[in-house]
């Protein structure tokens, strides 16, 4: 139809132009051509070099944790300073590059942070692998109120994050954030830390039992023979507290700021 006609017309035009360009090139003296090519190659190299250097400092922070721990609320607190009307179980990740809400009042040039909230539902775990390679820091959110019933699931997920290839190789710092501390029945962060260390210790023995085929040093956590402690990890692991609903997220913001330097 019309498309075909226009197509053939364009083809004819393009051929004409190619012919003219060829004539032009043949006319110019060779020295000029070489200089032109050299300039092009040089600028390309320069751009590639700049890109390589830029890549080293990423500004991505990944929020992860079990479903229902409060990641989406924290995301919106960081961004807007309020949790709006509440949240439901996320089916997709929430991403955003913005300046933290509490810092919008500060003067001067502040670097925006790229925050990703990965859904915690077990069927959507695969999404985490998409974002980990580019992360500068990981925040593992734990529900401090409903901690004990979910302790095993939380520690399994934490174990998977700690032994992920990108986390181990790039020594990505990790913040374990105990959320919902505004509630009276919330556990303390020391209690949570001890419980997690105990569970991960047990997981170490049963997990390494499953894949003895290719256990390299990078993927085993901590020092074998000793009880596991977060201080044994190669990457930095810290514990903090926060409350998503009331907006008490100062420890989280400090962690982010330390990683993404303005």
């Amino acid at each position, binding site marked *: 139809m019309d498309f075909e006609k226009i197509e053939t017309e*364009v083809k004819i035009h393009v051929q004409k132009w190619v012919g003219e360009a060829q004539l032009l090139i043949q006319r110019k003296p060779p020295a000029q051509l070489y200089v032109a090519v050299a300039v092009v190659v040089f600028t390309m190299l320069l751009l590639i070099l700049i890109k390589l250097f830029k890549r080293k400092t990423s500004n991505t922070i990944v929020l992860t944790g079990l479903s229902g721990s409060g990641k989406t609320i924290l995301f919106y607190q960081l961004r807007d300073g309020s949790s709006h009307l509440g949240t439901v179980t*996320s089916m997709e990740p929430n991403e955003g590059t913005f300046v933290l809400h509490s810092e919008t009042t500060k003067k001067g040039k502040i670097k925006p942070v790229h925050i990703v909230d990965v859904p915690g539902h077990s069927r959507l775990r695969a999404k985490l692998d998409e974002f980990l390679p580019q992360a500068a820091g990981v925040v593992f959110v734990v529900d401090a109120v409903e901690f004990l019933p979910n302790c*095993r699931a939380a520690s399994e997920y934490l174990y998977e994050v700690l032994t992920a290839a990108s986390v181990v190789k790039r020594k990505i710092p990790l913040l374990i954030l105990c959320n919902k501390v505004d509630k009276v029945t919330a556990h303390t962060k020391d209690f949570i830390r001890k419980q997690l260390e105990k569970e991960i210790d047990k997981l170490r023995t049963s997990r390494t039992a499953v894949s003895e085929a290719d256990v390299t040093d990078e993927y085993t956590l901590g020092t074998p023979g000793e009880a596991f402690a977060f201080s044994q990890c190669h990457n930095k692991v810290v514990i903090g507290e926060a409350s998503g609903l009331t907006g008490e997220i100062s420890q989280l913001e400090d962690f982010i700021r330390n990683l993404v330097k303005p």
Partner: protein
Amino acid sequence: MLEQLLIFTRGGLILWTCRELGNALRGSPIETLIRSCLLEERSGSASYSYDAPGAAYTLKWSFHNELGLVFVAVYQRILHLLYVDDLLEMVKDEFSKIYEPTRMVYNDFDDTFQQLKKEAEDLAEKMKKSKQPVKAINANLGKKQGLGQKGGVDGGNQKKSCDDGNGDKDGNKTKSYVYENGHTNGEHVSNGEVTVASGVNGKENRSSNTGAFDKDKLQKMRGGKGGKKTNTAAVSKAPKEELKKKPRVWNDSPPVSKLDFTDPVSENGTDKVPVVAVEHGESMMDREEIISSDSDSDEEEELGKNAKIETKKKGWFSTMFNSIAGKASLDKADLEPALKALKDRLMTKNVAEEIAEKLCESVAASLEGKKLASFTRISSTVQAAMEEALVRILTPRRSIDIMRDVHAAKDQGKPYVVVFVGVNGVGKSTNLAKVAYWLLQHKVSVMMAACDTFRSGAVEQLRTHARRLQIPIFEKGYEKDPAIVAKEAVQEATRNGSDVVLVDTAGRMQDNEPLMRALSKLIYVNNPDLILFVGEALVGNDAVDQLSKFNQKLADLSPSPNPQLIDGILLTKFDTIDDKVGAALSMVYISGSPVMFVGCGQSYTDLKKLNVKSIVKTLLK
């Protein structure tokens, strides 16, 4: 009256709720909807029922795939509100006009919503009034069709007979099916009486389904026909004392004395036959699988590139055209051919038909209204969406780390009990031995319990495995109550300090009421930690029926208020199917439980984990 109408993003933020209908919902219906329906790829179905203590709700939803919004309406189940679908559509249209990604507060939508609600209610009133005279006529026709249809579907074996409005034909069909079924378990009367029994069966089936007949009347009828023995798919009151096994008489030879060739010496298993412990190397569970993912992706890239070069020239033509004509979003009609092709491809890979259908509907629901990204074809978008959906379904919802559970039970000082259930001949005993071998390799002490007290040779089979693996076996011979044997086995295991008890049960068809009752009794009495359904990968559409009926019977026939259901699936005979791996998908979809092991051969080391990525790749090849 609507209880609640919610608008939220796919990322989880609630954008708007109707403030008037302020009564808080009991339980958490929205969360349950997301977890058990939308994330389980069942978003193609029309509605979802939620039960909480004190409330029963029905939820209906609608997606706006382009903006990533979900609209959910909740109302009481006893009310049949007709206007909900229309209301959802209208709300969707109105809201998408005022939606902006940066705006979080939509208070002005309240008024619009009130208007829309009034409109929808008026529309429903009008439709009701116009429907009423027509309804009365249709009801009678509907009933007759319903009766015939139900009789056809349920009579006899789980074969799905086609809609047969004719009642007489159904009777004949049931006869032939029950006849076949009569041979499976040997608990039936001899051949001569089968036809008559099945005649009764056919009638009973239809009556039990429609519920229009009096069940007691039928019982009397059955009793009057001379105490017929029980048969498959019958009404639940099966007399138990008639289940004694009569030896089969083939011709006029005199009846043989009890056919039991078990060696009296080896009954207690202490014979000194020198058998070396089996050492076959490491089980395939522990070997990491090398996935060759590159070849396929290269192919795809090439295709993509060619498509790009092709469409680059036409690219700006088509976008120009689209911007003039204004059709850039995906329509159901556009998705039809691509989805149909995908569905056929899935079915050639042995996925059950209704599962493939539901999956395609769910993918369609998630793609409708989405804008096509530039330079992509519809088929590649559909393929990508289907791949994501398949990975989501096959990824386990809960941890399948059995070693961890075993250690946890060990800490508590009691043995970890695993029960293997399934239909006849799927490989329960063989795979039980494989699991025992794997556990032994990880320094866990295992004990076998021979609760298949029915099949000749079952106890000897397990005894041989136990001897080769050098593990204790608890057996009580044949014709004992399996529930009691299992209970004593667990007690024995606590006494001698075994970590795991593997319980082998007899194979049974999912329609066989008395056997399913016996199974639920075994589970109720012993309270196992893991119920593994063993299913073979060769099964086709029957997988759906097997799993759903097993789960249903376990739930219905259990005397406890919280019955235990199937926790995991063991897929066997995986080496016999080349790339027709669809049974895995059907089983996981219909039951929601993960595949914990895959049996891929007949020696001790042939036990693997399910590799989700490779299965998805094979399914969509």
